[in-house]
């Protein structure tokens, strides 16, 4: 977003909000050690409780939202935040697909709470952990657990320039090819979620000779049926295949469907 666009010749204001999450995606901004001070010069960070005691009220030009919605209070809070942000960007797998905590969505959350807390009556939580986009319109999503620092900086640069961010929606396989990785699934028979997972990590896990576990969520139009068939060829049980889809991006509908299909078969 250029300064002309916001109409007042000032730097765009940025606010960072947190819901159910580990703080890792917002930490990505503080981990941009080489760029942080430059970013802080280009935008006005006006609300970012993890990093500053300054808390300026909205409206904001850009809102970055981390975390999933798991309480009644948070379901209301995201509505207020949406009203305050001209552009709302969800960052990370919790905000974009409910996160690991969405594993409760297949279980009895009351039983979960009783297992963890001595006095479950004190606990208020929703039955489901859901992505922000199930509650309010979202302008852009950054995937990943955590998000990629490069993608975050690309997003900020694109917004400052008033252009669309260049974030690929193809699979991790392309990143493996680009890195000249030998395919772990073909060469070593290691189950890998790479063929159905969106790129962005730089094919990290296959580069460490292990299978991708899908932390960037489903790519655009993933062929999950074909991957399920391949996992069976590798000798994976239905239970193992369900666990593969029902992991870091469990509640993303393509993975949800793939896991449930496998469970029914």
């Amino acid at each position: 977003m250029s300064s002309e666009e916001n109409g007042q010749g000032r730097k765009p204001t940025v606010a960072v909000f947190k819901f159910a999450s580990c703080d890792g995606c917002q930490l990505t901004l503080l981990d941009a050690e080489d760029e942080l001070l430059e970013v802080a010069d280009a935008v006005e960070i006006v609300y970012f409780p993890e990093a500053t005691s300054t808390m300026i009220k909205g409206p904001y030009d850009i809102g970055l939202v981390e975390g999933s919605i798991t309480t009644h209070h948070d379901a209301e809070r995201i509505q207020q935040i949406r009203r305050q942000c001209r552009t709302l960007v969800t960052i990370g797998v919790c905000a974009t697909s409910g996160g690991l905590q969405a594993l409760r969505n297949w279980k009895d959350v009351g039983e979960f709470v009783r297992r963890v807390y001595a006095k479950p009556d004190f606990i208020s939580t929703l039955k489901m952990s859901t992505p922000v986009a199930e509650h309010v319109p979202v302008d852009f999503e950054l995937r990943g657990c955590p998000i990629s620092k490069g993608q975050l900086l690309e997003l900020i640069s694109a917004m400052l320039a008033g252009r669309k961010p260049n974030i690929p929606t193809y699979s991790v396989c392309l990143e493996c090819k680009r890195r000249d990785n030998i395919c772990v699934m073909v060469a070593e028979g290691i189950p890998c979620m790479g063929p159905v997972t969106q790129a962005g990590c730089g094919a990290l896990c296959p580069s460490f000779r292990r299978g991708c576990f899908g932390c960037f969520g489903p790519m655009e139009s993933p062929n999950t049926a074909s991957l399920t068939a391949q996992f069976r060829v590798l000798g994976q049980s239905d239970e193992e295949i369900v666990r593969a889809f029902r992991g870091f991006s469990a509640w993303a509908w393509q993975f949800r469907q793939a896991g449930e299909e496998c469970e029914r078969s």
Partner: protein
Amino acid sequence: MNERAGPSRNIKVDYLTRVEGEGAVHVKLKGGQVQDVQMRIFEPPRLFEAFLRGRHYMEVPDMVARICGICPIAYQMSAVQALERILGIEADPAVRLLRRLFYCGEWIESHALHIYMLHAPDFLGVPDAIQLARTHRDVVEQGLRLKKTGNRLVTLLGGREIHPIGAAVGGFYKTPSRAELNSLVDELQWSRDAAVATASLVAGFDFPDFEQDYEFVALSHPEEYPLNEGRLVSSRGLDIDVSEFNDHFVEQHVKHSNALQARLRERGSYLVGPLARFNLNFEKLPEVARQAAADCGLEAPCRNPFRSIVVRAIEVIFACDEALKLIAEYHPPEAPRVIAPARAGVGHGATEAPRGVLYHRYEIDERGLVVSAQIVPPTAQNQKRMEEDLWQLVPPLAALPVEEITARCEQAVRNYDPCISCATHFVRVERE
């Protein structure tokens, strides 16, 4: 924050800033007396211990990492220790070395983050490190470069800074060459010097006179400053194997905070983290760190929590120095990891997260699936002690304006570098 007329006043921090996660502090004052202190945590629960059940043990290190974006390695290291005990795996000495090195990276990045970006602003009267950079850019740049050194070490062994993917039950998925590790030596040497400069810088801050009578709890190892293994010891004579944790510590679910606050069965609250490690293991620190402590006028035992920022700087010196020693000793293991067949059992693990002792206990079945999990993070253990600090801190300040008392309370909480996201994988506090 609000101020009521008359002798009764409420100190309220409704959203603690410069901490990891969502929390609040309420202190009720009446006529100079503290009536109540509540460390409130409204971070929503994520219920890790419940959804880990039924997952395979090989998935556990990646999953528990997600409890905390700041200290994922701590979670991975406590988990692999517990799970390897069940499986009867003895890690290769080279793997043990790499784990220690990995952990040094996390300590450097986490402590540098806390010293420069979260805690120093309190002492310098600015809202954040970005404001600080406007007047002291070189200081902030030094902090960022130090933090980056830690992150580079983590990235080399784990692929990325946050939620690294290199660690496995049995070892690592891939181990580095000596040349790869040697590429970090110059930067680690710079960082060790920068950490000494950091200690000297923060030791010059103005510290309130606030000595407390803590029971310090930390790991202790016969030869090493504690990182990834040791017995659990305390300043009042506790000395137990990690597997005895539940015999000596209890977690209580209290209404006002709904945190499962840990306490010693016999004696109540205790303190984990840099102060505890420093006080219980001072003689294991390398000469360069002990000398820096002496130059800062810091002696063990240090009982002033406000000086924990200096202790963190001393620990960064240690971590850089230790990393250099480990890199010099390193020879790659024959295999990156040991693979053992699944077997049923119960295992315990405890390591020193940047914020203190992190205890894990797992039970797995004969197929390798998790039957039960228990995770006790450092911030949950320190929570009661944080409240007790506020009970002691506030009365002498009672005549001050509410804003000043509030600022001092926030600073006192930040002494602990609380990681509420960690504590809250099982913690929930109702908002008023």
